[in-house]
């Protein structure tokens, strides 16, 4: 090839991209009913409902799996795979009558065997560890006939139905040996495919027993880089994104409706009480006095959000007690307490924050800056979500972490059981005898009124001992393209895609 021709070729090649360009401008084509939902992390823990731990995974799996019961948007338990249930007089046997004609996504009918298998697997009776602490109370699961399954408990637990509605107790087919890579459930949406770190695709399940979903196809697009969410939304490649920051919503174009709700979680700096200096209650109190929650809200969310003072959020109306005044911002007092604890010159520690949750990263920066004023130096350690799960949550190898903790079941216990000394999920290593005794009393107290009182005392215990630096139940902002409507907030950490529909559908 002569040099001259090479030159010509080079010029041609330079032009090709310019031609290709014309092919890509404009918006994506209007598929009849589909939606692209942005999510901040891939579902890395597991697609097996009995092994999923991350709230971000469970809120998506909510659309694929169902338990015998499930929560609705008002915080009630409604029947799902079971049509109804009853409790024996001694409170130990729960009888579930199965709904007729409930199908798995592979077309098979749900049988009593499947239910027995699922509950036993979920409860850890088949060898694995259970993610629902309360399920260790299950003695046996009995198939009465084709339509009835009885669950027998060792001890009475009036919260039991709430645990049955937990995603970790979802009903899956007995015959599926690999639920983690081939998820099959009974929910309104079925799993189609996934591409790691890219997307996951769901399709409407046509044989769903209940109110069918509206949108045919859902693409869950993974956007781990919080900085590019606004670009994705404004650019038109994502139709919906939940849990945005105020600053993000302010940058969105007019094509989006911003819906505001509550996240139903407790955002706090969770302290590892097994590590010095957080084994010293004065240090914990000092930090609580030093942190100014109003200032955090002002800086990160234009004052939107609901300050909390203990591990309970306002949506649990019956149990919630307002403890936000426990530690009014008082830096002098904080310094005194630090001096008393033996840290007159402060100390330094690190706050571990998952790097894909922008609101937590922002809050952590403000907290670090506030603590500096009492001489405490906080470094922020950003980690990938999965690292957070394995190091902080399971490994308990951290000093402090800023995160939101939600309730996995529709019961106040779900917020409080993790602070019992020997609880499996006690990732803060909180250990307080009074707390443990109070918690035990819950299960032997028959009167509802007295139980509510105990719940309140538990919250007070956490606040008094400054178990964690409590911040807020965050305001939730959901951006939904104006082509859609029907987004529904739940009092739990849940995304219900089945209720979303095209405008006018």
């Amino acid at each position: 090839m002569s040099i001259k021709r090479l030159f010509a070729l080079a010029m041609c090649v330079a032009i090709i991209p310019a031609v290709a360009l014309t092919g890509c401008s404009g918006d994506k084509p209007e598929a009849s009913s589909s939606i692209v939902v942005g999510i901040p992390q891939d579902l890395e823990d597991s697609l097996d409902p009995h092994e999923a731990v991350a709230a971000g995974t469970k809120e998506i799996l909510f659309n694929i799996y169902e338990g015998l019961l499930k929560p609705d948007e008002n915080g009630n338990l409604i029947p799902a795979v079971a049509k109804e249930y009853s409790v024996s007089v001694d409170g130990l046997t729960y009888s579930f009558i199965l709904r007729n004609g409930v199908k798995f996504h592979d077309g098979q009918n749900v049988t009593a065997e499947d239910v027995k298998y699922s509950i036993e697997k979920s409860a850890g009776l088949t060898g694995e560890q259970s993610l629902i602490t309360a399920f260790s109370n299950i003695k046996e699961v009995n198939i009465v006939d084709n339509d009835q399954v009885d669950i027998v408990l060792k001890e009475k637990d009036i919260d039991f139905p709430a645990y049955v509605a937990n995603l970790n107790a979802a009903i899956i087919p007995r015959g599926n040996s690999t639920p983690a890579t081939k998820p099959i459930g009974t929910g309104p949406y079925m799993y189609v495919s996934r591409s790691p770190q890219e997307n996951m695709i769901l399709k409407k399940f046509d044989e769903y027993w209940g109110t069918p979903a509206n949108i045919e196809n859902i693409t869950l697009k993974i956007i781990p880089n919080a900085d590019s969410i606004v670009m994705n939304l404004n650019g038109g490649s994502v139709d919906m994104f939940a849990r945005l920051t105020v600053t993000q919503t302010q940058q969105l174009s007019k094509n989006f409706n911003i819906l505001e709700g509550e996240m139903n979680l407790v955002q706090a700096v969770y302290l590892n009480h097994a590590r010095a200096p957080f084994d010293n209650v004065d240090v914990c109190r000092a930090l609580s006095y030093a942190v100014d929650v109003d200032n955090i809200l002002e800086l990160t969310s234009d004052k939107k959000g609901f300050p909390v003072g203990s591990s309970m959020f306002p949506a649990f109306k019956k149990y919630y007690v307002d403890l936000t005044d426990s530690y009014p911002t008082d830096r002098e007092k904080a310094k005194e307490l630090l001096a008393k604890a033996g840290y007159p010159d402060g100390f330094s520690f690190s706050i571990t924050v998952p790097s894909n949750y922008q609101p937590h990263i922002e809050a952590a920066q403000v907290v670090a800056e506030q603590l500096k004023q009492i001489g405490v130096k906080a470094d922020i350690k950003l980690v990938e979500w999965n690292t957070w799960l394995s190091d902080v949550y399971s490994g308990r190898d951290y000093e402090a972490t800023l995160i939101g903790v939600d309730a996995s079941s529709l019961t106040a216990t779900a917020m409080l059981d993790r602070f019992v000394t020997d609880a499996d999920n006690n990732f803060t290593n909180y250990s307080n005898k009074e707390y443990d005794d109070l918690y035990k009393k819950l299960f032997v107290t028959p009167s509802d009124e007295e139980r509510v009182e105990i719940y309140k005392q538990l919250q007070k215990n956490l606040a008094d001992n400054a178990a964690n630096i409590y911040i807020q139940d965050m305001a939730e902002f959901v951006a939904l393209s104006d082509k859609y409507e029907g987004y529904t907030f739940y009092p739990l950490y849940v995304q219900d895609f089945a209720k979303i529909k095209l405008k006018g559908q």
Partner: protein
Amino acid sequence: MDKLVFKIKKNPELYAGAVITAVMLLVILLGRLFVPYDPDAMNAADKFARPSLAHLMGCDNFGRDLYARLAAGGATTLFIALATVLIGVVFGIIVGAFTGYYGGALDEILMRFNDAVLAFPSILLALVVISIMGSGTFKVIISLGIVFIPSFARIVRSEFLRCKNLDYVRSARLMGAHDLRIMFVHILPNTFPVLLSSTVIGFNNAVLAEASMSFLGIGVQPPSSSLGRMLSDAQAFLFMSPGYAILTGVTIALIILGFSLLGDGLKKNA
């Protein structure tokens, strides 16, 4: 005066590079010394404040003064680059001097090793090193420093190869000078002209590497500011305050421009 014009015309890169670098250093120094704000101090009232007399470049999403942050971030970035290059040069000189001077099997093995490392994209290597040690300012310095050693070692080695049989070295040897003395007193100073321009270019690469790593979120961690980290943050506010991203990006670009011109100019002079 004419002499100066002539000098500039002969090597415009050197002078342009020196001026740009000096200006950037001055801007950062002034920002560190005379801006009356703590680069980390937050102020709700000044969120996204526009540039004004009080805040010359405006403020970021936490109401932190941008100029103060840019100066602090620039200082961090420059410090990391300096430390990285220092590690690279010092260990590069040691490895290069011994292998170049003595040759032999050790030289052969180390240079194969060197070539292997050089053939592989450096940012990926740094990523792997960082995955062992975790992120943070000092870990970035160490991981980048390690990655930078081979290129300096190669330069020093070839200079030593060239010099070791020159007359002045031979005569020093005849006079009974110790090997170490010959290597570091006689030969080493002669490698400086070549080493200087590669150091400046290495510095340039270090600034870019630090910025890339922090941009990916695996370098400097908040609340510490570095230019890459700031640019990554600024990306989230591109619509609300594009100035934040542009100012940060331009600062990085100007620092790199200054050093790359300086490096070119020094090479021409060498």
